[in-house]
């Protein structure tokens, strides 16, 4: 039974369409990952789920409550941890949690107990009474996470919670998210870190240009790719014609499938090789016959990056790099301001 339902969600900012008819269903008590490069629409989706912005069209519900028409009711169910941690630098961490508790109408007696529990759980004892302005990135994340958990929400929504964090803070947050999921909370996590989603998520969607391009469990998605993933280069920097010729050769070999030309990586060729067959020696022979030499050949277990590559023709890193030049973060920030 799905706890969160999103159907045909669309949202645009002036001339940029951030979400294009995105649909997904999230069962209760799962740690659900939203993976995609920067600019894919993850933050827009998260902000809509957190009731911060309204979609242009589409339906969205949490626990069968319409999010668009009953946003106040939804806010009681959700905890939100934003991508950019916004703390009041003048307040101490404890004062911030106290302030936040009042906004969530937590009773005075419960408030003190709840704040203490979170301070211990997130290991914040040493610095909780210091002003937030003195906190490191990891401390800020932890206090922000504690703020989102004060009212024991049914759903915790996190937008890129471990970006730029030290390993200690990242591990604390990862462990906490797993514990929360084990306690029955539905955790929704967006990230562009493959290992984070791979290690944490029970289920995930991969978003690209505002659309879902793959969904399932990490294992399902990787298994769909079949055998080992191979990256082949015949020269350091090849070209379109040459790579197309190699694709033809590879297509003729039985047991090789899902061949993709990765232009961003010097026209390298990615493909899946059937584990059962000894294809590499055959590949060498076929290439030599067509007067090609192997410059490099790497073999790996399928990863979520391969899933993304399979669906889009480029790796997540390449997608990030290509988006980096196109995005005007200052403009986006202004547009998302109330």
């Amino acid at each position: 039974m799905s706890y969160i339902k999103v159907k045909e969600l669309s949202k645009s900012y002036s001339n940029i369409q951030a979400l294009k008819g995105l649909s997904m269903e999230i069962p209760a008590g799962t740690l659900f990952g939203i993976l995609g490069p920067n600019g894919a629409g993850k933050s827009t989706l998260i902000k809509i789920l957190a009731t911060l912005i309204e979609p242009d069209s589409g339906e969205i519900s949490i626990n069968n409550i319409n999010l668009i028409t009953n946003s106040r009711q939804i806010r009681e169910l959700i905890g939100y941890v934003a991508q950019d941690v916004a703390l009041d630098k003048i307040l101490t961490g404890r004062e911030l949690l106290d302030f936040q508790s009042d906004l969530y109408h937590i009773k005075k007696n419960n408030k003190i107990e709840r704040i203490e529990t979170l301070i211990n759980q997130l290991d914040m004892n040493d610095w909780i009474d210091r002003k937030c302005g003195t906190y490191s990135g990891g401390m800020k994340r932890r206090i922000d996470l504690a703020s989102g958990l004060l009212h024991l929400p049914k759903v915790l929504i996190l937008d890129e919670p471990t970006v730029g964090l030290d390993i200690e803070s990242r591990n604390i947050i990862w462990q906490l998210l797993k514990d929360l999921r084990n306690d029955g909370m539905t955790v929704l996590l967006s990230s562009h870190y493959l290992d984070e989603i791979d290690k944490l998520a029970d289920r995930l969607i991969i978003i690209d240009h505002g659309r879902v391009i793959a969904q399932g469990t990490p294992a399902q998605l990787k298994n769909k790719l079949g055998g080992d993933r191979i990256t082949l280069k015949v020269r350091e920097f090849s070209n379109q014609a040459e790579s197309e010729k190699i694709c033809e050769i590879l297509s003729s070999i039985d047991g090789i499938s899902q061949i993709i030309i990765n232009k961003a990586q010097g026209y390298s060729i990615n493909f899946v090789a059937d584990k059962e067959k000894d294809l590499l020696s055959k590949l060498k022979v076929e290439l030599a016959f067509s007067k090609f030499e192997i410059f490099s050949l790497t073999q790996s277990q399928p990863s979520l990056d391969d899933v993304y590559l399979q669906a889009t023709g480029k790796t997540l890193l390449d997608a990030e790099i290509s988006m980096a030049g196109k995005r005007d973060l200052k403009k986006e920030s202004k547009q998302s301001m109330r």
Partner: protein
Amino acid sequence: MELKKYNLFFLYQETYALTKRLFIQLKRRPSTLLAGILQPIIWLFLFGALFSKAPEGFLPGVDSYGNFLGAGLIVFTAFSGALNSGLPLMFDREFGFLNRLLVAPLTSRLSIVLSAFFYITILSFVQSIVIMIVSYVLGYGWPNLYGLGIVFTTLILLVLFVTSISLCLAFILPGHIELIALIFVINLPLLFASTALAPISFMPNWLGWLASLNPLTFAIEPIRTAYTQTIDLELVALYAPYGELTCKSCISILFYLTVLSLIIIRPLLNRKLN
């Protein structure tokens, strides 16, 4: 009924928390409070000294220029504070802290606006009382209880009026630089184009018109009346080019302006906060 009772309590809890946050900020960064008190006191000394040798009867109805100036400075202090009230909200918008408030299940987002009103009103009262005490020490008089009632009623209306405009600007303008620039542009010209520093009879005709339409004037004149020994709301307080206005009329105009500004900003606040 039970739900309404809880809602009221929750509204109080939210507003209290939001107001408390502003006061913690003020306590840890008191420079705004101190500057807001020091500036008018310096003005009181300087302007008082500047006109100390003015001939007797130079100003109608008052003994000295300091006596005349006090009301203007009280209003100017409250006005400046209220005009700056949008700044914390603007910073919250810019740094994303407003989102923290907006994802919380607030009973009413009116609490965000109410907290700004409470904070600025209390701050203005504190600053005004300090200025009144300094004026008294300098020998410029002290209003009686009825007069104090007039002073604080007028200040509440002015603060509500200006704060609502400032909050509105904090949502309309793109950033704090623009808001601060606008505050700079508005602040002093409005002071000089009012009866804070000189009566309308001293002004050229065009400036007299401006001053008599300036909302600050409608706050200054009742407070000036409050400092006189025989307070009568029906007595003429403002000799404007378009006619004579009593103290009661000035307060009424200020009241209607406040109501009007609240009505005008309501749709914008609803759109931005809901």
